[in-house]
């Protein structure tokens, strides 16, 4: 059974790019156009891994992560942030919100896949 990945990003370009990378690595991918879309999708089906941007209009990525974590079904689901920010403070906010890993954009393909495999392998 392929593991299901949810990719949340408000840039269509980024969604296509990351989906391609993740699907090529053998995962099944679903995309969400922003935090709210992502949240709705998490409530309607179960994903094994979530990959999310931070700076999105409406619900930002940190808020998205916090709200996903209030759902007991997602207690143990790994969440990876992919964002442009590289300040230590941003990473802290991300981890406090409930993310497991922080990857800086633009993520090169092998690094993104390695991060996902690392986090999935660690279960």
């Amino acid at each position, binding site marked *: 059974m392929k593991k299901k990945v949810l990719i949340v990003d408000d840039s269509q370009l980024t969604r296509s790019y990351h989906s391609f990378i993740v699907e090529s690595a053998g995962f099944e991918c679903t995309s969400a156009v922003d935090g709210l879309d992502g*949240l709705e999708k998490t*409530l*309607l089906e179960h994903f094994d891994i979530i990959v999310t941007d931070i700076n999105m209009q*409406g619900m930002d990525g940190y*808020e998205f992560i916090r709200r996903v974590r209030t759902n007991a079904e997602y207690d143990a689901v790994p969440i990876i942030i992919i964002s442009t920010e590289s300040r230590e403070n941003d990473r802290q906010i991300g981890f406090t919100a409930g993310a497991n890993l922080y990857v800086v954009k633009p993520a090169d393909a092998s690094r993104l896949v390695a991060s996902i495999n690392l986090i999935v392998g660690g279960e």
Partner: protein
Amino acid sequence: MSQNISTFVPEKGRGEHFAPAATTLSMKDFQNIRDVIYKKLGIYFEDAKVFFIQKRIEKRMAILGIERFDDYAFQLCFTDSDSVEMQRLANLVTTNETYMFREFDQLQAFADICLPEILKEKERKNDRTLKIWSAGCSSGEEPYTLAIILREVMHDAARWNIQITGTDIDEHVIDMARKGVYEERSLREVPIEYMDRHLKETSVGSFQIHGDTSRLVDIQHLNLHDKVSMRKMRSYDFIFCRNVLIYFDDISRRTAVDHFYNALNPGGYIFLGHSESIGRITSAFTLLRKGRHLVYQKAPPAVRNDSTKEPS
């Protein structure tokens, strides 16, 4: 005197002679349009609706004099900053028909899950008031639907102080709502058992809501844009505002929703049309899954240990 024989060339009215190109809306353009409709109106159209959307866009394109679908998509996504075109498109892609028990699925979420939850919580606190607001109720189908549901779900309804407030801006439909008389068209989704219990046929094809049910409902005039009146609405446990806000512009929509937020009790629920998403207007409500349904709730009162604040 020489006469100029002038040939009168009627000016081509843009909407009459102009036909859009005989082409198909590409999936790419459909997805872009779908995304912007979703972001601005909160309505999601699946892939199966491509043809439906295409036909409606063609109408707009004919009026605007646009030939290519991608040009229309560009205008809708990028140059429509005050959402005027979006509202025009909204009128074409949504149906404004009102009838009882519309959007049954959502009413099930209300009746089977949210309502019992609120009732239980209130009983726990010895509070037997229940207030529901049907905003933009038109000719009254929605508030009476809610009244029927309450009478069916609540076995001890008589011991509760129940108020269902239906409001609308249009005096004409308010009059109709107060009469509570409906034709079969409005009643086609009413479960059969409920027909006998809550409606009586007063003349051929015409039914009136039973007094016992209609007395739960109070119909009032209210303009959702009127800040002063809106601010007076308080302490509701449920607000229904279905298929109304999509026709508002951005700012009015956000303002109305702010008022709804304050009109709701903590823990109260708000229902927009099943394909509308209030989360697109504000992130102040919490999105929850109840059974098969997604619903929006105003955060329940937190348990406070702080002695300077009274628990609500």
